[in-house]
C-alpha cells in the first residue's frame, strides 16, 4: 500500500514539476530494517517515481559502510538530499507529518542550488572559515518545526562550511536525552549553542557566529 495518498501524490507531482536540476535521494537502511526504515525507504522510492529529476538510491548502513562514511551518515534511517554537489542536507528519521513539507522544500532548494537567505545572511555564511554542524530536533506533529529545519538546510545549501540535519526526536530518543531536548524545534549548533523554537534567520545567524567564535 502506498504511503502517499492520491491527493498528496498529485500535489507532490505538481511541486516537483518545475525542478531545475537532478536530485539524488541517497537513503540508508539495513538488511534487518530499523524502526521506520522500511517506511522511509518506501517514501523515498514513491517520491522518486513522481519526477524524472529525482532518483532514489538505497544503501545498507552495515554492508555499505564505506559509502555511509563518504556521505557522513552515522545513524539510520537517513536521507541525504544531493543536488549538483553534496550541500550537507540530511534527514534522520522519517520526514512525515509536518516534516514532509521540509523534505519537499529541501528537494526543491537543492535542485535549484539557490538558498533563500537575506543578503546579510549569505555574506555572514560566506565568511565562515571553519565547519558548522546544525542539528534541528523535531517531532512530526510540530507545526513550528519545518521553518527551523528549512532555515538550517538553506544555510547548508548557501555555505560549503555548513551541514544541517533534521533529527526526528522520537526515533532517536538517546540523542534527545544527550542534547537535553524537552521541546521542539531545538536547533543545536556545533554541540555548543542552541536555539529554541522557530527563530528568525538573524537570531540563528547570531547563535551560529557565537558557536564559531566560542570554539
Amino acid at each position, binding site marked *: 500500500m502506498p504511503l502517499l495518498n492520491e491527493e498528496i501524490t498529485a500535489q507532490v507531482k505538481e511541486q516537483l514539476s518545475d525542478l531545475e536540476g537532478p536530485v539524488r535521494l541517497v537513503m540508508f537502511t539495513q538488511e534487518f530494517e530499523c524502526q521506520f526504515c522500511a517506511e522511509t525507504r518506501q517514501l523515498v522510492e514513491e517520491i522518486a517515481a513522481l519526477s524524472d529529476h529525482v532518483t532514489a538510491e538505497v544503501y545498507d548502513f552495515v554492508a555499505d559502510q564505506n559509502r555511509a562514511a563518504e556521505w557522513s551518515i552515522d545513524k539510520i534511517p537517513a536521507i541525504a538530499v544531493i543536488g549538483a554537489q553534496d550541500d550537507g542536507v540530511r534527514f534522520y528519521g522519517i520526514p512525515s507529518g509536518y516534516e514532509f513539507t521540509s523534505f519537499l522544500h529541501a528537494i526543491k532548494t537543492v535542485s535549484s542550488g539557490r538558498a533563500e537567505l537575506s543578503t546579510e545572511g549569505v555574506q555572514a555564511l560566506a565568511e565562515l572559515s571553519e565547519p558548522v554542524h546544525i542539528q534541528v530536533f523535531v517531532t512530526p506533529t510540530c507545526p513550528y518545526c519545518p521553518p527551523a529545519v528549512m532555515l538550517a538546510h538553506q544555510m547548508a545549501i548557501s555555505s560549503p562550511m555548513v551541514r544541517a540535519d533534521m533529527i526526528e526526536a522520537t526515533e532517536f530518543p538517546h540523542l534527545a536525552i544527550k542534547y*537535553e*531536548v524537552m*521541546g521542539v524545534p531545538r536547533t543545536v549548533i556545533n554541540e555548543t549553542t542552541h536555539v529554541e523554537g522557530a527563530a528568525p534567520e538573524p537570531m540563528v545567524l547570531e547563535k551560529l557566529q557565537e558557536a564559531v567564535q566560542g570554539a
Partner: protein
Amino acid sequence: MFDFKLTPSLQETQQETEKTRGRVYDLIVLGGGPAGLTAAIYAGRARVDTLVLAGSLPGGQPANTDVVDNFPGFPEGLEGPELVRRFQSQAERFGCQIELEEVVEVDFFSRPFTVRTHRATYQALAVIVATGASPRRLGVPGEDKFFGRGVSACATCDGFFYRDKRVAVVGGGDSAVIEALFLTRFAREVVIIHRRDELRATQIYQEQAFANPKIRVAWDTVVEEVLGDQTVSGVRVRNVKTGEMETIEVDGVFIYVGMDPKTELFAGQLDLDEWGYIVSDHRQRTNVPGVFAAGDVQDPLYRQVVVAAGTGAVAAMEVEKFLGEYPKSRIDKDVSTACCETEL
C-alpha cells in the same frame, strides 16, 4: 499511521529583485492566516495588485489545528493545514504574490505606506493588518528561562518528551482541556491548574477530563513561578481564595491561557484597545485611512476561521473602494484629510 502534510510554507520566497524594488503595490496584506488570505483572494480577484507578507509560519492558527470542524462547506471537517493550503492556492490563482517574510517595521505616517521585513522594504497605497494572535504567556518568573526546555505552548509538539512524567496544564478553556487529554497518552499524571472553580471548556471535553484517572484539577489556583535548576522541577502556585501557597512537583508546564493580538509593531500608529486589539469599525477601517484590520488581531470575541475570513473579505472590498476614490496620482495630497471625513 503516517500522515504527510504539505503546509503553505512550501511557497518559494523571492529575493529582493528589480521587480519589487521601488515598486508601489496597491495593497500589502500583513498575515497569511484565514483573514489575510481571504483578503488576498478578494483583492486579487478584483485585480488589485497585492503582496501578502505571510511571516515565517504561514497559515495562521489553523496551520496548528488538527481538524477544523466548523468551516462551512466541509461536512466531514478538514485538517487545519489543508484548509489554509487551499486558501493560499486560491489566492495564488488570482495572481497574489505571497512572501514568507516576517515584518519588522511599518510606517503608516507617510504615503505610500512602508513595510520593512528582514529581507526587503515594500511600499503600498493600502494595507490590511491581519497578523492574528499568539498564545499568551503567564508572565511569571522562570517561564522565559524554561521556555522550550520544560515550558511549552504546544502539547502535540512536545508531549513525547514527557513519557511517564508529571506535567501541569495551565488554563481552563477548550485548548487547555483538549491538550491535557492529549498529554495523558504520554504523561503519568496531568494537573490542570485553573484560576476559577469551574472549567470554561465545552461540556464534552470536561466530561472526558473528569473521567480520566490521570487528570486532576487544581481549582482556584494560579501559577506564581516555574521552579527548577537545570530542568523544571515544579510550579509554585497560589490559591486565589485562601491565599495559600503550595508547590506542585511537575517535569513540564504547558500553557493554554488564551491568546494575545500581535500588534506590538503598530503601537503609536494604529489605535489599540486596552487589551492590545486594533480598533476597527464595521467596515474594518482603522484610525489611519487606507489601513484596514481583519481577523483575530481586531477580534477579542469570536476568533473563528469563518469570522476571520469574513472580515478579510470586507477589508479587501473596502480597499478596492478606497483605491477607487484615491488612485495613485491623488493619494499623496488628498487622502490624509479627505477620507477622514467619510462617516464611520
